[in-house]
């Protein structure tokens, strides 16, 4: 899988280099943004929870970077890197976490529950597995409208594979032969529940055969593997190969949320290959391949920190939602809201 082994042609090396450099910078920005959210959380500046993508950036960015703007993306709670790569403005994340009235969710929903459906970016609800069939619906609608070549990716964790929604939606996608890429981040724990209490099959990728869909396994700590495998899955879906199930093995390098110290994570897992930090590994790849040097990476880091600080400072000056200006109706047809019918 490593490019240096097979000595690909120079053009491919160039493309590989560009993909790694682009992906790494999204990963770095996502990690630093997560660090900022954690700091704001500890300072009491964020209402509600904070959920980080630490340890899952390589997988997440591979999803975002493999999609094009006209595709559909349903990220989950640890997909900051994939969101940035798909094109979500960093301001959307900061505004939603800080509850700015100017954010896409306008203070009505928070933290990771953000998106822009008409831009193909779906705002997750908390019920796990529930976004997959929504992606299916967008893909089916495009088929009905005669639009082809579009792909929809949904990200979930291994815990969500236990839900009925997951089963129904993956089967539905298979029946309709939809270009769905379902990415499972097997990060070993669903909140505190270890895999041994979550499922009994040897490998979640084995489930693909039961649904009649293609399976891909990937080392979620290795950016090169993530880019190649997720890229192949997206290409397979785009080429008409039907749903693709990607299972990435990795370890969550943080708590479920910042309220959680993750003391239940086994130290043996932390010391295993799964516990490697994908950002460090990606940096090592860049240095080893001489695609970037330490000075360049330091420049990217300081530029990202400045970008984050500037955005946070801007958002902190923005208005909070005003309950007296709120419409307080959940219907688009406002004349049908309770108390409004004339």
């Amino acid at each position: 899988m490593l490019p240096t082994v097979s000595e690909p042609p120079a053009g491919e090396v160039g493309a590989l280099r560009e993909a790694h450099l682009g992906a790494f910078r999204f990963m770095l920005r996502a990690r630093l943004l997560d660090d900022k959210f954690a700091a704001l959380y500890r300072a009491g500046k964020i209402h509600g929870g904070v959920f980080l993508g630490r340890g899952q950036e390589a997988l997440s960015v591979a999803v975002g970077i493999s999609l094009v703007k006209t595709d559909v993306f349903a990220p989950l709670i640890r997909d900051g890197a994939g969101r940035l790569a798909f094109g979500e403005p960093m301001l959307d994340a900061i505004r939603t976490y800080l509850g700015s009235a100017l954010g896409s969710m306008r203070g009505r929903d928070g933290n990771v529950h953000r998106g822009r459906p008409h831009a193909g970016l779906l705002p997750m609800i908390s019920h796990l597995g529930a976004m997959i069939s929504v992606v299916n619906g967008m893909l089916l609608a495009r088929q009905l409208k005669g639009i082809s070549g579009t792909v929809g990716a949904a990200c979930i964790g291994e815990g969500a594979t236990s839900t009925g929604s997951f089963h129904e939606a993956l089967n539905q996608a298979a029946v309709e032969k939809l270009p769905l890429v379902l990415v499972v981040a097997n990060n070993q724990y669903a909140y505190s529940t270890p895999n041994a209490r979550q499922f009994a099959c040897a490998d979640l990728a084995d489930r693909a055969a039961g649904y009649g869909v293609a399976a891909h396994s990937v080392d979620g700590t290795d950016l090169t593997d993530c880019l190649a495998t997720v890229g192949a899955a997206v290409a397979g879906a785009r080429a008409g190969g039907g749903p693709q199930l990607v299972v990435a093995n990795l370890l969550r390098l943080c708590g479920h949320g910042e309220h959680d110290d993750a003391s239940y994570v086994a130290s043996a897992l932390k010391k295993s290959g799964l516990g490697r930090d994908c950002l460090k590994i990606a940096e090592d790849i860049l240095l080893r391949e001489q695609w970037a040097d330490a000075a360049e990476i330091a420049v990217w880091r300081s530029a990202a920190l400045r970008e984050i600080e500037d955005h946070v400072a801007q958002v902190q000056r923005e208005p909070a939602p005003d309950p007296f200006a709120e419409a307080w109706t959940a219907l688009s047809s406002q004349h049908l809201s309770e108390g409004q019918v004339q």
Partner: protein
Amino acid sequence: MSITYLEAIREAQARALRDDPRVFIYGQDVGEFGGAFKATKNLAREYPGRVLDAPISEDAIVGLAVGAAIEGMRPIIEMQFADFSTVGFNQIVNQAATLFWRTQVPCPITVRLPFGGTSGSGPFHSQSLEAIYAHYPGVVVLTPATVEDAYSLLLAAVAIDDPVIFCEHKLLYYHLKAEKLPTEALPIGKARIHREGRDLTIVTYSAMVHEAAAAATELATEGWEIEVVDLRSVKPLDTDTVVASVARTGRLLCVGEAWPWGGVTAEVIARVTAEGYGLLDAPPQRLNAKDTPVPYHPNLWAAHRPTARSIAAAARNLLRT
């Protein structure tokens, strides 16, 4: 030439498919087979590729509809029985019903629920779930009682930009007939005076409108003039028409086939009590199904739900107070 309640639902869907290329139908057995009740009979043939059989996956069925709605489509979902919509409940109340409020992107989906009791159907093919859905913000809940409303409210449901729970009563499917389809209709959210009277108001909806009307006919032989208000839509609920009727009669009986706890009848009484307390000559009453699962045997079923006879008895008691 006459048309049944079920045929009206089929005709409304045919017209929606004909008039609006964004409409498609998705549900179990709705395709070539034409649906468990034949509400989509021949539609798959008349509109190829737009009437799609779904796997037995209510959650994914509704989720798919939400996704399609985001893409600008107007899906009509057929739940085979209202009872099974509980499997898709999460997608209805948490996905569809919150989408516009969260994102300003409308969610124009219509979920058809064949609901209500029929003899011999038992606990899992008889339920009335309008109150459960009406409890959630972000949905419109319609309960047509007539052939005309089955047609016009279904077309209205498809036309509006919000999720609609369309409760169509199975008992009315074959027996309720009209001469022709309507050319005009009351809008969503307006109740209708089904029968005028001056002594007591019965507020109800769906199949119970006909039970209440039969009770009113029976009571007319005793000299009572009963007004029957058909809500048509339980959410939004037309409080004004209800209060105006109570202002005329001074007495209120609410009737629903659903279970009593926290339901539509409780909501109507709460509103009338709050907004029209001074109009009441007697404490408002309600009559619902018993607080048990819906029984299978006809003897038990007939006693479980309100009927013309039990409605008339409740009305007599109220008229005497």
